Structure formats: C-alpha cells, structure tokens
C-alpha cells in the first residue's frame, strides 16, 4: 500500500521545485558575478553615455550640424539633376536656400568659437543615419517615379525640422543673446519652409491648415497654425511598396542621443 497520498506528493513536489529555483538564483562558488540581468545566452555589457553636459556650446554645435545636413541635402538634390521641366524653378530656390544655410552655419560656428567651443562643420551623424540617408535612398530608388517632387518634400521637412530646433533651444540656451541669435536663424528657416510649402501646394489653398479629403491626412501648408509646432514631422517619399503605399519617415528634433557633444567629430 502506498504510504503517500496524491495530495502529499503534489505538496512535496511543489516545495522541492521552489527549493531548486531558489538555489538556481543564489550565488554559486567559482562562478563570476555578471552585471547583467540573469538570462540565457551572452548579453553584451551595458555601456552608459559618457558624462556629458548639455551646454550652450553643445546646443549650438547641434544647430550647426543641422545646417550642414541641409547644405548636404540641397547639394545632393542639385546633383541629382532632377530639377527640370515643371521643377526647373526649384533649382534656383534650392541654390538660394543652400546658400542661406551656409551663412547660418558660419554664423553659428562663429558664436561657438566666441564661446570657446570647437566649431562643427559637417552634418549631424545621427540624423544622417536615421533620416537623411534612408530618405535619399528612397528618393533615388530606380522605381521612384517622381524624385524631383520627393526632394522638395524632404527639403520642406528639413526646413521645418530646423525651424523647430531653433525654436526648441530657446528654452535650453542659458544666454538671452544666444536665444535671439538662434531665433534670427530660426525665423529664416520658417520662411524657407513656407516658400517650399507653396512650391508643394501653391496658391491660396496651400496657405492655411487643411485636410486631404481622400487620404484624411493634412495637406502641406505654408502657415499650418497660430504657433510654431514642436511635433514630429512625417515625410512620405520613394517608390510604391508592394501593398501600394509609400514609405514614411518620422523626423524629430535632435534629442539627448543626437546632440553634438564635444566628443562628436566629423569623420
């Protein structure tokens, strides 16, 4: 006759399993302690950010990097040779806006030098990696039917991004004169964005905020609201995907992981 009831066996089994689990979680002699959360497999060591400060110089270097992002994008657009026919006038606009950005970059780098910082003379590496390079790849895809239009769409988005960035750093810059200098350029970027918005959606219908009745999405507007937004910017470019849609990138102003700290250099 069995001396253990079914209930006893289950209770004993549960206690044993809990004991094994606790033993597994405990320290074992001869086994090196890992800093990682216990897991199966090899986990790379966590790497923290270096001890950096978000200073006025860092914010200005970031602004300078955005200027070079814009310069590079306009240069790339002009180099594509797509501004022909209906887009011939866009070439003149692109050259003018690129030249404005060159002036802005020089002005910002002048301020950085005055503050004792190292000027930054190339595009923001992080924004290049996650926004601009993917967008240009989509635009120059052989299956893209309208690269000229898409280049203007990207430029419009970058101008909005720049205008938002300058507006956003007003709350971060510690010096009032620097805030004014930032917005001197910021309002230029806002004008650029308005001009490009009119190129994309010309005339009275493209001035104020409106919604596309077919897609339900907002139309491009030169003056989309009463206040300068600080919201993500969506950019739809490139060829049609297999499902009939086109790729959309979401652009956001630089944040802690895309600021140009002193240890960020132009490769």
């Amino acid at each position: 006759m069995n001396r253990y009831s079914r209930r006893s066996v289950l209770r004993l089994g549960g206690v044993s399993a809990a004991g094994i689990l606790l033993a597994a979680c405990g320290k074992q002699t001869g086994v090196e302690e890992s800093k990682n959360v216990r897991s199966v497999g090899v986990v790379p060591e966590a790497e923290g950010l270096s001890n950096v400060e978000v200073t006025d110089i860092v914010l200005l270097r970031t602004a300078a990097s955005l200027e070079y992002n814009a310069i590079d994008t306009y240069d790339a657009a002009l180099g594509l040779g797509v501004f022909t026919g209906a887009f011939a006038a866009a070439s003149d606009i692109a050259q003018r806006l690129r030249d404005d950005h060159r002036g802005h970059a020089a002005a910002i780098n002048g301020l950085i030098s005055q503050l004792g910082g190292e000027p930054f003379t190339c595009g923001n590496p992080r924004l290049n990696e996650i926004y601009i390079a993917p967008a240009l790849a989509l635009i120059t895809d052989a299956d893209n039917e309208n690269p000229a239009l898409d280049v203007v769409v990207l430029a419009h988005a970058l101008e909005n991004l720049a205008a938002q960035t300058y507006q956003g750093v007003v709350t971060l810059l510690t010096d009032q004169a620097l805030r004014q200098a930032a917005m001197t350029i910021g309002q230029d970027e806002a004008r650029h964005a308005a001009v490009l918005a009119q190129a994309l959606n010309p005339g009275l219908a493209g001035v104020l905020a409106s919604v596309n009745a077919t897609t339900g999405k907002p139309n491009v507007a030169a003056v989309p609201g009463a206040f300068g937004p600080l919201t993500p910017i969506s950019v739809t470019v490139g060829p049609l995907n297999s499902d009939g849609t086109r790729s959309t990138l979401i652009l956001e102003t630089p944040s802690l992981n895309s600021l140009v700290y002193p240890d960020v250099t132009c490769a």
Partner: protein
Amino acid sequence: MTQPTAITPATKADRELLGFANAAEFAARDLYAIAAASAAFSDDEKTVLTGFHDHHRAAAQALAGMAGSIATNEPAAAVLDIFRSRLNGSNKNAILEALRELENTLAATHLSLVGALEGTGGAALVASILNVEARQSATLALLGGRSLNDALTNGAAPLSLGAGS
C-alpha cells in the same frame, strides 16, 4: 549626464514686455479685420486673411496669459496708426504689401523680445509666435507676386516699447 534647467517663469520685467506684445498682436488682429473686409479681395483671399487674423488673436491671448494683469488686451494705437491708412483702396497687392510689412515689423519686434526676456517660458512663447509671423510674411510676399528674396528676408525695424500705448 547633466540636462538643462527647467523652463523659468516670466519675471515682472518680462510681463511688461509680454503685455506690450499682447497689444501689438491685438492691433495686428484688427488690421487684418480691416483688410478682410475690403472689397479688393475674393472670398478665398478673405479666408486666408481671416486665418491670419485668427492667428494674431490667438497669439495676443496667449501673451495675455503670460503677462497677467499687465496685459491691456487692447490694440496698440501706435501700430494701428502706422498701418491702417495703407489698407484702404482697391489695390490688392498694395494691401498685401502693407500686411507683409506688418508681419515683418512684428517678427522683428518679437525677435528683440526673445533677446530681452529673462524667463524661458515667455521667450519660448514669443519664439513660437515669431516663427509663424515669419511664415505669414513669406506667404504674403509670394501671394503678392514679390521676389523670392522679399519672401526670405526681413528688413523691418522692431517697434519700440513705447509704441504699445
């Protein structure tokens, strides 16, 4: 990592400046109301002018919120005096040019305020309004058939603080 300090509130001196901007924005609202009533414009054009009117009203109200009891919520007479006479007549482009200059004047004024305001909260609000007025100026230049350079540059001088009354 050290992050920047939090947004700082408007000081007493800031509230004076924000109250001045409040009056200038209400004047712009009233000037757009005059323009939008002009027979020189089509219904579609009036829709745009009314939209810009609404933007100035929203800006004025937001500035009033920061200026507090210092805000008069009345249009700045000096600003009305500068531009009102240029909104008469049937020359559409002349009216658009007057409005463009109004936007540029306000943009220049707000730019100087951004450099004067101590609290970052007020400076951020004014910067936000400034970017919209720069867009409105550029748009009016294009609608008025002016050059790309006119759309992209601002040669206006800022209003002096005394122009608010």
